[in-house]
């Protein structure tokens, strides 16, 4: 296992494209998270000048709710890493290195395992990034920090890890399927931002709610804010085990489909 991971790490370590794209992603996340409160404050002020009743402000950084807030928002940036994954798997096809890997002594399953492990490590790194930012911002903006507050709601981090992993395995599958990076990225964007949203509009909820994007995205629901409470809206503020099970099912399905593709195909 470690050997497979080491091999894949060697492949990406020397790649400028990988470090530039992931570095950009990390920078984006950090800037967004640190600047977010100022943005929310401005919005609240703006809204208050127009509102007949005083609206309560929103504190995004207070522990333990910060875990829910940050993981929810970080979910919107995952497409960025999905693109990185697609580039890396389609490169293996366009350089034909997947073929040479098998010729050199990988089984097809070894190749797949090394990729699944690397995707796991990337998901973990993304989760750790959110965790570190959360600890810093949480400690700075929370009064009377206790262990219970700091580590309360960290199940949202686990859910975020799973969200990232499931999404990246889907991106990987799309890359495997079409082999060409531009086409694969286009297909993933098309499905995520047009096909599934439009499809859900026409489909009944009992089908629409179980589509991949919806399933992966709704493990972590929209965080409740005092404004929403005023409006009488209540979102799910916990992680449902059924949502997790559904996403795990998708991980298994995407992984299995990738396996079928690599097994049946001439490399």
């Amino acid at each position, binding site marked *: 296992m470690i*050997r497979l991971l*080491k*091999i894949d790490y*060697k*492949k990406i370590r*020397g*790649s*400028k*494209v990988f470090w530039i794209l992931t570095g950009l992603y990390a920078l984006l996340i950090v800037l967004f998270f640190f600047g977010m409160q100022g943005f929310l404050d401005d919005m609240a002020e703006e809204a208050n000048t127009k509102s007949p009743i005083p609206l309560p402000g929103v504190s995004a950084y207070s522990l333990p709710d910060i875990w829910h807030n940050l993981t929810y928002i970080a979910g919107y940036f995952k497409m960025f890493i999905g693109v990185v994954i697609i580039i890396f798997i389609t490169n293996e096809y366009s*350089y*034909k*290195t997947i*073929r*040479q*890997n*098998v*010729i*050199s*002594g*990988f*089984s097809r399953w*070894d190749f797949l395992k090394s990729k699944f492990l690397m995707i796991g490590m990337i998901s973990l790194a993304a989760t750790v990034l959110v965790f570190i930012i959360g600890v810093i911002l949480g400690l700075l903006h929370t009064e009377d920090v206790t262990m219970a507050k700091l580590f309360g709601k960290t199940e949202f981090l686990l859910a975020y890890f799973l969200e990232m992993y499931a999404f990246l395995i889907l991106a990987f599958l799309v890359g495997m399927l079409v082999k060409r990076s531009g086409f694969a990225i286009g297909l993933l964007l098309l499905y995520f931002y047009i096909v599934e949203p439009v499809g859900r509009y026409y489909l009944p909820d009992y089908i629409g709610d179980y589509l991949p994007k919806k399933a992966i995205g709704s493990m972590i629901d929209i965080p409740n804010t005092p404004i929403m409470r005023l409006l009488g809206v209540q979102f799910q503020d916990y992680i449902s085990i059924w949502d997790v099970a559904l996403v795990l099912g998708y991980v298994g399905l995407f992984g299995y489909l990738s396996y079928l593709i690599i097994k*049946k195909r*001439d*490399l």
Partner: protein
Amino acid sequence: MEETVLSIRELTKNYGRIKAVDNLSLDVKRGNVFGILGPNGSGKTTTLGIVLSVINSNGGSFSWFGKEPSKNDRKAIGAILEVPIFYPYLSGEKNLEIIADIKACSYEKIPEVLEIVDLTARKKSKFRTYSLGMKQRLAIAAALVGEPEVLILDEPTNGLDPQGIAEIRELILEIAKRGITIILASHLLDEVQKICSHVIVLDKGKDIFTGKVSEIVNASTLVEISAEDMSSLKKKLEENENVLSSEEEGNLVLVKLKDGYGIKDLNQQLISLNITITHLSVRKKSLENYFLELMAEK
């Protein structure tokens, strides 16, 4: 008895209605330098792809070292198919490390194989900066990394200049001397003739000749003759029972001789018949002609 390294039985691969490999069987023994000869599209690379488990066959079987195929066989095989394949953004050395990692062998051999192919000075350069000759040499280095028992080379001199070709051929002969079994696919008769001990000739995925290289070379030899009196030369040649065929080409007559009847015998006979020869030389037929002949015989 010689140990069989690779055995192929009734292998078939279809691409739609086209048969890329058609009911092919062959055996490669330990220590052979085995040539797979055929024009482009004759199924050489497809056959090698199947025995290296990157292409799925539609029928037949193969075995390495007398066992069912597994990834561990491939760790004992050094192979390159078609063009050298490496990660372009990594250095030559890093690329070799990845191959060593996949084969689960140590990096100890890497400096040695880089030295063999004369790439030590450029080992830190990215692969994409290499010239074609350097890429081909790195591919041979990669094939040698795991101390292979078998080396598979597919058109190893393709696209190289004459000096590069000579270097690579010398290198292959050097490797063969160490007792490593070599399987070489090529469309060049000359290359197979210079390097290989055994050969299979493929056309449209079919085996049209299997045997020792010396046999194919004899069968493809033509003798060029011209004389002052061309008409009596032609007449005498037609009467000679050791001459299988003769045809005119410009001011030369091209003659194919029976096995065992050499150019010396022909010369002596013509002299005794009072024919003065002005030109006599041996010409190796072009591979294309030879293939046409083999196919016509089938």
